[in-house]
């Protein structure tokens, strides 16, 4: 009796397993081959043009209705602030979705770099979010639904740019906060984000991502010696929608050189592909074990007869 049961159980397990493996593989391949929405927008940040006026920070504060700043936005003493024993410059937080930092390489004029969400084509924050709070919009923005955020902060760990911040000041209903490319108020209506509009130097160029790539490479070509030969964000981490032109290696203006060109999801999608399979197979597997064990225990009782009958019916089909 138990022999028939085992055969049936194994067949069922294999069928379920095969179905989920195929399903899982398909999904994983789809995630890896996404090359971005064709007409999505982006911003090219030209570090040689930024003069550190912080108007972008002020514009962001107003547009996103963020809390009042501690210091006026024309106070340049913020560039001297450091944190964690001088190892970290200012970063984005719940009251500032963008900050400008100053870097002073030896023998060079200060270089200012604006920090905000880079709106990855394949966002790590989105991959890491188990409540699907994040969305990559067709316009190019990475937005999130704060109402479903459970405050796990996986996205803060996943982001290679340290961008998502947490509303620590709120005891209840604390959620993740970050730049959304002014998606709700501007981008979805075809308008540039507030920071781009206010920039007096056009250090921020708004346009279709594919056009910005052309412009970036053209600037490098037209002004020999002005830039390093790299449009940061073209390929890095699978491509970002905010990209940078820099006069010096990007490590010297605070970019982490470690993440390569692979999107973060590539490092985890094989593992994540197994998750649905495990979820589907394990209940069947352990139910099978359970039934086997139970059948061996209960030889000759009433349950056993009923199951035998079922098996025969199954065999006739």
């Amino acid at each position, binding site marked *: 009796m138990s022999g028939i049961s085992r055969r049936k159980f194994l067949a069922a397990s294999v069928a379920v397993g095969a179905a989920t493996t195929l399903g899982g593989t398909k999904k994983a391949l789809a995630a890896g081959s996404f090359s971005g929405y064709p007409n999505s927008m982006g911003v090219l940040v030209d570090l040689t*043009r930024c*003069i550190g*006026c912080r*108007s972008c920070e*002020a*514009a962001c*504060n*107003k547009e996103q209705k963020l*809390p*009042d*700043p*501690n*210091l*006026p*936005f*024309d*106070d340049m*003493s*913020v560039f001297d*602030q450091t*944190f*964690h024993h001088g190892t*970290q410059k*200012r*970063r984005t*937080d*719940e*009251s*500032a979705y963008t900050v400008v930092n100053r870097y002073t390489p030896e023998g060079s004029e200060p270089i200012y770099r604006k920090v905000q969400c880079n709106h990855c084509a394949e966002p790590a924050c989105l991959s890491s979010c188990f409540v699907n709070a994040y969305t990559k919009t067709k316009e190019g923005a990475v937005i999130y639904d704060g109402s479903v955020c459970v405050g796990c902060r996986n996205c803060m760990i996943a982001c290679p740019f340290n961008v998502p*911040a*947490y509303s*620590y*000041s709120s005891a209840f209903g604390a959620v993740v906060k970050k730049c959304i490319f002014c998606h709700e108020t501007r981008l979805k209506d*075809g*308008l*540039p984000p507030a920071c*781009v*509009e206010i920039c*007096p*130097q*056009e250090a921020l*160029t*708004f*346009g*279709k991502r594919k*056009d910005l790539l*052309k*412009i970036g490479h*053209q*600037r490098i070509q*037209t002004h020999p010696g002005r830039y390093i030969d790299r449009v940061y964000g073209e390929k890095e981490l699978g491509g970002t929608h905010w990209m940078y032109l820099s006069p010096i290696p990007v490590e010297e203006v605070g970019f982490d050189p470690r993440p390569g060109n692979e999107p973060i999801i590539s490092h985890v999608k094989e593992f994540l592909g197994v998750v649905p399979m495990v979820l589907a197979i394990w209940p069947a597997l352990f139910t099978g074990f359970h039934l086997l064990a139970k059948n061996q225990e209960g030889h000759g009782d009433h349950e056993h007869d009923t199951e035998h009958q079922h098996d025969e019916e199954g065999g006739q089909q």
Partner: protein
Amino acid sequence: MSAKQILTTLMMVLALIVVGSTTMAADMPEQVSLDTMVELFEAVEFDHDMHSELGEDCSVCHHHTTGTGTTDDRCISCHANSDELETVACINCHVSDPFSSEHLSRESQEIYQFHIDRPGLKAAYHWNCIGCHEEMDGPTGCEDCHARTPEGDEFYHKDATGSADEGGHH
């Protein structure tokens, strides 16, 4: 027949007057009011007379559009001997809305490939002004040229007085 001739002559004279008046240096403005950002800043009254006396050559600011020849390496290959254009004001080429969807779609159909990535009006002013002012010790601070309106003070949170390291997690 003769009436037609008179009409043609009149038209030609009229055309000459129009063309002549647009190309005359006397048309040069004494002062230009730069008022595209009047919400946050007072308009800047740019003293065109004073600046044109300082500059040796109109092309320093106006590229090839004034018919005086250009010195810019990037323009000279096409515009070394360009004639004066009908309009030479900055805003005729450097638009005030460089990132509007209308302008972006116009730009994507730009047939003059060398003119792509042309800065908008605000950037064109700032690059030209600040670049020259740095060389010639002119004013370079934001408020040296731009007096802020009350809305501007509010925008920059002029009265914020909290301590530097309060609030926010780093």
